[in-house]
């Protein structure tokens, strides 16, 4: 073993990142600007709505989709967040989650369809997903900065990397789980590729895809604290500041707010697949 020279993986990676930075920074910065506008706009919009109105609307949605108990929990939980003066931070976090999850759906569902339909794509994408899910977030957090700058955009991009795999995997699974006979039904009545997809496969895969979206939301929330390290504000930012200043109480408050948001989003989206 000693005769084999050490493989300079670290050096190669640095070189690759440098090369990418030099050649693609303009592109990624352009993307970053667009995303930043959208996310900040969404944050500002959510903050601008009167909190009382948000609390009532969320409670009603929870009632409709998840029942009385979750509605009550949403009401009390959100009122508590408002009371401890973490409302704006919460809205910032939710805006980032919405942005990340939307992008995950827009990119993840088509990729899931692709891997379900194409064996080669499946073989290529699956190991990449393993990589995305297990590579420690810190490892790609810092390289994101040269491409996307500091703030919400790299936070959303890194969240994307972490939270997208379940959507791809579960879309793939949902489509593959469509019973063979129903696939044959579609084909034997002369459905085209897209008719198969939109009239048979996606409707039947819907509960599975929604489970993927639910997981994606939860993973996105779990990334907010880590993302705060590169300048994304929100609840994660509060936690991060509290840690740096050893303010245990402040950190705990923000942590509880994250848990409340997580429970509300989880229960509501869990029931999305069942009610309809």
């Amino acid at each position, binding site marked *: 073993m000693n005769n084999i020279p050490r493989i300079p993986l670290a050096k190669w990676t640095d070189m690759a990142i440098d090369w990418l930075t030099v050649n693609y920074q303009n592109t990624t910065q352009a993307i970053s600007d667009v995303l930043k506008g959208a996310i900040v706009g969404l944050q500002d919009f959510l903050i601008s709505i009167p909190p009382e109105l948000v609390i009532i609307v969320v409670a009603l949605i929870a009632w409709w989709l998840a029942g009385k108990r979750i509605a009550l929990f949403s009401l009390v939980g959100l009122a508590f967040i408002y009371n401890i003066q973490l409302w704006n931070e919460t809205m910032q976090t939710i805006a980032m989650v919405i942005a990340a999850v939307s992008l995950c759906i827009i990119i993840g569902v088509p990729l899931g369809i692709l891997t379900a339909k194409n064996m080669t794509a499946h073989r290529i994408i699956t190991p990449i997903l393993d990589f995305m899910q297990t590579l420690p977030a810190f490892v790609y957090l810092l390289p994101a900065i040269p491409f996307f700058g500091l703030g919400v955009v790299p936070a959303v991009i890194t969240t994307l990397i972490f939270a997208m795999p379940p959507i791809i995997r579960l879309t793939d699974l949902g489509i593959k789980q469509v019973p063979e*006979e129903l696939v*044959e*039904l579609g*084909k034997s009545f*002369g459905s085209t590729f897209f*008719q198969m997809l939109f009239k048979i496969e996606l409707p*039947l895969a819907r509960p599975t895809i929604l489970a993927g979206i639910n997981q994606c939301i939860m993973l996105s929330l779990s990334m907010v604290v880590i993302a705060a390290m590169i300048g994304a504000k929100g609840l994660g930012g509060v936690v991060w500041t509290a840690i740096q200043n050893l303010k245990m109480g402040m950190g705990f408050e923000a942590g509880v707010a994250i848990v409340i948001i997580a429970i509300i989003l989880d229960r509501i989206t869990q029931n999305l697949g069942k009610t309809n």
Partner: protein
Amino acid sequence: MEKLKVSNVTKIYGNNTDKAMEMVLKGEDNEQIRAKTKQVVGVREASFSVEEGESFVIMGLSGSGKSTLLRCINQLIKPTAGHIYLDGQDLTKVSSQELIEIRRKRMGMVFQRFALLPNRTILENVGYGLEVQGIARKVRTEQAKKALHMVGLKGWEDYYPHNLSGGMQQRVGIARALATNPDILLMDEPFSALDPLIRQDMQDELLEIQKKLHKTIIFITHDLDEALKIGDRIALMKDARIVQIGEPEDILLSPASDYVARFVENVNRSKALTASSVMVKPRSVVYPKDGPRAALRIMEVHGISSVFVVDRKGALIGYVRAEDAAEAAEKGQRELDGIIQNDVPTAFDDTPLSELLDVLAYTKVPVAVIDEEKILKGVLVRGSVIAGLAGERRDWDE
């Protein structure tokens, strides 16, 4: 008119079929091919043709290749070799666009486990074929409703599949296949998942629908009783090959191989056999102008106690008993008038034997088999019936 022709269709499963195909052509058996090439032969060299309006049943046990063969017809499975002709057009050669058109307009499929979409209402399920054709909702709804009524499901339009029993679900499946008004119905064990009683109802209903619509039906089953009931002709498959094709009675009465013979051994023959298949020729008949003496002589020659009387065209009039003929002869009567009995038990040539067993058990005279014009076609005697039920065909004398 020939509607569908399947010519030398072979399907080999695997990713290297050339070698296996060579072995198929050399006639080596499936097991050898599998051992040498790891390829599985699904269907080998199947050929048959189906007339327009015919019900053609493909029967075999599971694994015999019958479902594969059915799927080769609408190209859900691409055959490795061979051709499928629909109205003379080779389906193995059409473009994928043409194939979609053909599947949309000319073929309907019915599935073993119904294959209803759980997220759609019954009406939307029935309208699926029309929907993919891009037909406007209004027309679609109307046609789908019509098809639903045909299978007796009026009023169920807005329910979901899980609200319906198995039998009803399969009616929906049939309605869906009929809604596009295709020429050919491909039915893949449509009644196998149903309870026996429901299954029989559905069979009867299919026969009723078929009487009205005259579709060309390719029907897959593993149940011989069902095959005999539905099929105008039956193809029997074993180990990926068609081992016999024939009308139901050919299969029962002259099985082409031991395998077929064993297959048909346990079938309830009384349902499958018709009067015409077990009747014997009416060799001894008399005409009204014949005198009682002539009648007596014929009975004597054939060793029977009564004889049928027919008119010049061969239409049945009645029968004469030996004792009546003897009495009339003694009285010096010259004609049979007056001693002809009219209470003849009769059967039509296509009456199933199961409906005649009762009559046969109690009658003292043979049962006359007649056609719609009352022409005497044959005679049922107990000996020939029992032989038929036992699976033998022998020319019986009365």
